């Protein structure tokens, strides 16, 4: 399933990366530890995290992740947004917790 369908079905707010929404999501990974995500995420995964600072952009770019979902309604910080826009990394915000959004995601992505 592609990012735009996921965003629509799960009512995600798109904050940047509009031009990349046709990317297919191949799976997902949840984590707030960057080394963990570096080691265990795979290309095309969607990443669910509560980290909103700019270091998440490099991780998503290096691992070629499909996009990032920020949980609990937290917006990315200003420089995160700038960096993600420059790198073309889609970022979404959900009002749900990580548990709730993953529960919904799992049924449509896997």
């Amino acid at each position, binding site marked *: 399933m592609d990012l735009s369908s996921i965003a629509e079905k799960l009512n995600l707010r798109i904050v940047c990366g509009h031009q990349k929404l046709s990317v297919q999501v191949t799976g997902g990974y949840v984590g*707030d530890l*960057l080394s963990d995500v570096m*080691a265990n995420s795979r290309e095309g995964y969607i990443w669910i995290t509560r980290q909103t600072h*700019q*270091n998440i952009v*490099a991780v998503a770019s290096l691992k070629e992740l499909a996009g990032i979902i920020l949980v609990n309604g937290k917006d990315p910080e200003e420089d995160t947004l700038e960096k993600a826009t420059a790198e073309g990394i889609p970022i979404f915000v959900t009002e749900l917790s990580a548990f709730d959004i993953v529960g919904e995601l799992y049924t449509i992505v896997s």
Partner: protein
Amino acid sequence: MNLSYENSFEIQGGNFKKAGDISVQIKKVLQNLGVPRAILRRVAIAVYESEINIISYANKGIIHIQVSPETVSIEAEDEGPGIENIELAMRAGYSTATDKIREMGFGAGMGIPNIINCSDTFNITSEVNKGTHLTMIIQLTNNQEEKN
């Protein structure tokens, strides 16, 4: 394919705003050189964890990267506090990261284990109050089963 590339990148300790920038830059260069994707993934992890450690713990450092038709060699050399107990530092989960570093999602104690996991050859030397030197080599030629 005639792979050949060499460059050095300076890293400032404590500069978390730029954390990962060098790794992203190096990955793009190697991608343009035509380095295979499976290799690229391993290089990205090794360089990233090295870069983050220099930013997290050292005063300053250099990442040197050299690509030949056979190997990608990465050297990460820094001036800093050094590592007193290397065996301990290599252990998964061991970390001396401060709360500030942990808040950003670093300091899981997985950096060096990740590097070892992605390298065909790994070497670390360190001198307390002087600095740390990592050498990582990833083979391009032999058909090793894909790590990461």
